[in-house]
């Protein structure tokens, strides 16, 4: 276990260095003027030059890069050119909402994907229709799915809200930043229910694609496992097909589905930009969407690094979970 963690930490540092260098290279190649964007459209040349010097943008790129890496090592991700706050502060404010949405989306994806895999492999009644709905939903572009959801469930049926993560201006912002937890901690039942209502539509949009991927992998794995000798033995002992599927086959088929879940979780963090933008969800997707037009490279870099760390951590967790699910696998 320790060896695995050490290996992953080393790989994480390497990934972060490569990511940060890539961001800096992109900044140079993009030929943008972030300081002009920072000051405002009609800023004078003198004001831009003055601010460039203050922000260090007039220094050689290599100097800027080493200064940035030095800052990152001490937890300083620089200041956002758009919000004029520390990027670390911004991430602290925006990241919990993304974690909340992604975790909820991941939960939905696992549940829906699990159902899809089991129903397809077990040939449950209605499996074909369920599969058709899931695949159709997953095939639609995310923004279209989101807009359709808003039209149907917000505009037409009035069941669910369309934007933001709460309808309350005074919703609690701590201790976790995750609203469904914080509202509960503060005993705000109405806000807690409201927070769940806000989660459903964006959560479903985030979950559908990964759910189909997970479901397909699980189904394939289940079908293969169900041809095993021990499954045949279980059947010959007179167990029902459902018991065979749930008690004997499922656990031995989880590895590939877990790998896919880990992969999808990483991708979900990176893929929530569109969903957060359409639903005005106050997470790092919305933060990134607003930072890109402003050429806010410190913010973009901070988000990239966080996503990189998240990806490595998630995959490490998946490795551990796989070992738990199948002790024959070695963590080393």
């Amino acid at each position, binding site marked *: 276990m320790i060896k695995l963690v050490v290996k992953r930490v080393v790989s994480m540092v390497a990934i972060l260095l490569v990511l940060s260098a890539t961001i800096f290279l992109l900044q140079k190649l993009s030929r943008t003027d972030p300081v002009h964007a920072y000051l405002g459209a009609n800023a004078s040349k003198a004001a831009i030059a003055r601010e460039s010097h203050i922000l260090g943008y007039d220094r050689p790129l290599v100097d800027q890069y080493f200064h940035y890496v030095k800052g990152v090592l001490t937890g300083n991700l620089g200041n956002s050119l758009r919000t004029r706050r520390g990027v670390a502060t911004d991430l602290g404010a925006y990241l919990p909402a993304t974690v909340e949405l992604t975790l909820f989306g991941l939960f939905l994806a696992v549940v829906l994907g699990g159902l899809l895999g089991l129903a397809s492999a077990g040939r449950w009644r209605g499996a074909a229709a369920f599969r058709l709905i899931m695949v159709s939903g997953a095939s639609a572009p995310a923004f279209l799915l989101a807009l359709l959801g808003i039209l149907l469930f917000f505009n037409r049926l009035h069941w669910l809200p369309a934007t*933001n993560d709460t309808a309350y*201006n005074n919703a609690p912002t701590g201790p976790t930043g995750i609203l469904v937890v914080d509202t509960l901690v*503060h005993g705000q039942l109405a806000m807690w229910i409201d927070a769940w209502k806000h989660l459903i539509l964006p959560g479903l949009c985030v979950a559908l694609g990964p759910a189909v991927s997970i479901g397909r992998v699980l189904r394939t794995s289940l079908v293969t496992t169900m041809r095993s000798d021990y499954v045949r033995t279980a059947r010959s002992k007179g167990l029902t097909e459902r018991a065979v599927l749930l008690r004997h086959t499922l656990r031995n088929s989880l590895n590939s589905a877990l790998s896919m879940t880990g992969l999808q979780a990483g991708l979900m963090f990176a893929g929530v930009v569109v969903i957060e933008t359409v639903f005005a969800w106050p997470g790092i997707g919305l933060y990134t969407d607003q930072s890109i037009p402003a050429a806010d490279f410190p913010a973009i870099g901070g988000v990239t690094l966080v996503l990189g760390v998240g990806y490595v951590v998630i995959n490490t967790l998946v490795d551990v979970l796989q070992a738990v699910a199948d002790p024959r696998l070695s963590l080393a």
Partner: protein
Amino acid sequence: MNKSHIKTNRRLRPAAVTLAATALVAGACGSSTASSGPSSASLAVSSSHTINLAFGADMQVPDPDIFYEIEGNAVVTSVYEGLVKYDNGTSKIVPAIASSWTVSPDGKTYTFTLRSGLTFHDGTPVDSAAAAFSFARRAGVNSAPAYMVADVTSTSEPDPQTFVVHLDKPVAAFLDYMASPYGPKLVSPTAVKAHETGVKASAPNGDWAQDWLKTHDAGTGPYAISSFVPGSHYVLSAYPGYWGTKPYYSTINISIIPDISVQQAELQSGQLSMILHGLPVNAVLNFRGDKSYEVQSFPAQLKSMLYVNPNIGIFQNAAVRTAMRQAIDKQAIVASVYGNTLATVSTQAYPVDEMPAGLALDDPTYNPAALKTALQSATGSKNIDLAYSTDDPTNQRVAEFIQTELDALGLTVTVHGVPISQVFNYASTPAAQLPNLLVWTVNPDDSAPDSWIRIFSNTNGSLNELHGSVPQADALMDAGLHATDPATIQSDYAQAGTLVADSGEWISIADVRDTVVSHAGVSGWYFQLPTADTVVLGDLTYTGKP
């Protein structure tokens, strides 16, 4: 934690919005059935005295000495006030904090008489010392809008209601600087001093409370910031001690909703009270045909421009540039792109209401054959790179229209979008690396002619993106800026505008209007030039059905 202050109106009406997602995506919302019947949303607006707005993106910080963009103007101008302001929808300057003012004959001393009995939101009295402190803060913060006080050598306060500004030389645009949404605003010295950080001997005012003013305010306006959560929402509450007409709406909620289609859906369902800007033309036309909504169109000073790079290729030839001015069918662009609703044809080198009719004309007779003829004798590549700024979707449509026109006349035009942060970099990029043409919709900081022409068309202008240059016009701008006789000032800028237009290096296409869609019954519209998003929220009222 109190369970109250629900942000949005939960009384949703059964709006029969079409479910055709493609129509919505295309901006074709608001069908005839979209909002028929009584609007409960409007009723909610009137009964709760709360108005719900949306911004497409976070505004810059609401610090009046830093804020310098369009999104968020409504917040800053509702929370802060300057000495003077623009009258409703015109460039006429009228009193605000100052009830009157005089200008010395040499144009170097401005004496403002301040209204008495005014207070900042923290209760601090408004007086000349506070005005002097506000000017000092503008200079001390030294961000982009600080240029408006760059020529101020000193200020003096003979008495609490008299504030005197001394300039080192006459600045014809100075009073416009004061009236601009970005102009110096009065900030409470008490609030600023109480929240300054980093104070030391070499920096007695520290950060001038910049950190605190990122989420708070220290103004005198009809509204105070009661909540400012970046990425989520802002809440403004009416200031009970406001000196002017008390605002009708006690609370203004502003959400961040980037997607304009979602904003439309929320307007139709009653979640939003109005959409301040950004609606596509077909949506505006649909709302205009629906009695449940009102469409307000204001004469902003936004101008759709075609920048021409005179330093490379075929457009180095002045005759080709002149002919191209005639080849652009402005009328057709306004009809096609703006639906003859969101803009009017530009006929002057300056934005509307900056120059009397008949001066600084940029209104050539449409004659596409002239370009065809000019191209026959011109040398240089006929492959044209036409860029447009992606910050405004209409730029693309204007660019594509121009591409079609020029292609038909013998040029081969390639169109591509450029993010605004890249457009900003053009002014410092060698001209040879820039596109031949650029479509961009821009606005000045204020209504003074100098504030338009100097920034976009002066050889050293910070937004002279394709490096045009008309030295004679530059000289006239400098002469006009430091003149004191109004007739001379007008004459200098009129000539400069004519020279700039005739150069063919900047072709004005359309004067874009600011369009706001609200539920029926909202009235009291007051719009401040020169840019979009400056509806004065404090003047809004509701006169619809109770």
